């Protein structure tokens, strides 16, 4: 294992003393197989215990350590130092307010996630004694990819629409709504459409596609949003041009 001195430039912000964020440099002795999160942990443990950031699993599962690394939304636990040269600039996730250092305020996302009801709403409730809600492998595959979302919010940091129009419900929340809408066991689509088939829902998306490019789990939110647009458009035509279907 070889060691390398890595220069980290970390955006710091202390709400109690700072009026605006500022960059701070750290020279970190790093092992060749380290990720940016390891370097941050080294800073916290050995150089500067005041540095704040979120992390938990260190294996791209919990979705806590999303941050901007050289301007790109990344999971710090998945950003290998060997892929970077020179000074590595680490900033909090774009488009979210900064709580402190690399910690962002994520209330907006959590509120939006709740609005789209990301859980199964069965068509009709049945007692446990009647058994499980069954599903074929094909029905599972229809939405499985969209279940892989870890709520890391990298897609929100990449989405220019969300940056410019913060009321946009955004990629991950709409994708999760689509995930449940596509589930053969679910009957809650009408409730979710009230939230997502709106201007601040899916129609704020202009298909930049950045969300899918940065998604660490290959959920492909851009695909989910375009599918929601097509299905919502079909709904509109059915409602307005084929009223006899609404009876």
């Amino acid at each position, binding site marked *: 294992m070889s060691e390398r001195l890595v220069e980290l430039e970390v955006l710091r912000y202390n*709400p109690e003393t700072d009026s605006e964020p500022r960059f701070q440099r750290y020279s970190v002795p790093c092992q060749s197989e380290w990720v940016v999160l390891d370097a941050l942990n080294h800073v916290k443990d050995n150089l500067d215990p005041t540095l704040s950031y979120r992390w938990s699993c260190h294996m791209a599962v919990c979705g806590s350590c999303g941050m901007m690394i050289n301007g790109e939304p990344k999971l710090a636990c998945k950003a290998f130092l060997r892929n970077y040269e020179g000074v590595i600039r680490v900033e909090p996730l774009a488009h979210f307010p*900064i709580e402190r250092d690399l910690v962002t305020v994520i209330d907006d996302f959590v509120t939006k996630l709740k609005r789209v009801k990301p859980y199964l709403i069965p068509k009709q409730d049945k007692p446990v004694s009647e058994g499980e809600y069954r599903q074929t492998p094909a029905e599972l*595959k229809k939405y499985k990819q969209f279940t892989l979302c870890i709520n890391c919010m990298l897609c929100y940091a990449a989405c220019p629409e969300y940056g410019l129009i913060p009321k946009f419900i955004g990629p991950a929340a709409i994708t999760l709504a689509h995930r449940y809408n596509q589930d053969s066991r679910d009957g809650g689509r009408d409730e979710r459409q009230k939230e997502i088939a709106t201007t601040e829902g899916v129609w704020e998306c202009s298909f930049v*596609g*950045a969300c899918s490019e940065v998604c660490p789990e290959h959920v492909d939110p851009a695909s989910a949003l375009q599918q929601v647009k097509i299905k919502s458009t079909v709904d509109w035509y059915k409602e307005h041009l084929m009223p006899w279907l609404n009876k």
Partner: protein
Amino acid sequence: MAEQVTRKPYVREVPRLRWFFRHPRYLRYMAREVTCIFIGAYTLLLLVGIRRLAEGQAAYEGFLQALKGPASVLFHVVALVFALYHTATWFNVTPKALPVQIGEEFLPGRVVAGAHYVVWALLSLAILFLAGVF
């Protein structure tokens, strides 16, 4: 008792215009969107042509003559390049919007995008045939 925690979240402003220089992917997006202007401009040109046709033979002949000018040829070449770019970039993302599931598996994306190119070629041939090229 715990100390009073003061919160003062800092909001970073997003530049209204310069954001698309942040990464090549945003420039590619802007290129896809902006090239539609040339398709719109060509549509207007066709409308002018129909109007000249309605005004009589002399007006239409004049319109056809104007199309042969160097500025017109340049516009046609530029508009064609941008229209092709616009079309190809949209066709290439169709698999995201229109995934086709047959049984358990999804059709590969290139089949969905490829079908668009095939239909495009067939429609173009049909129009050329109607125009008497063949």
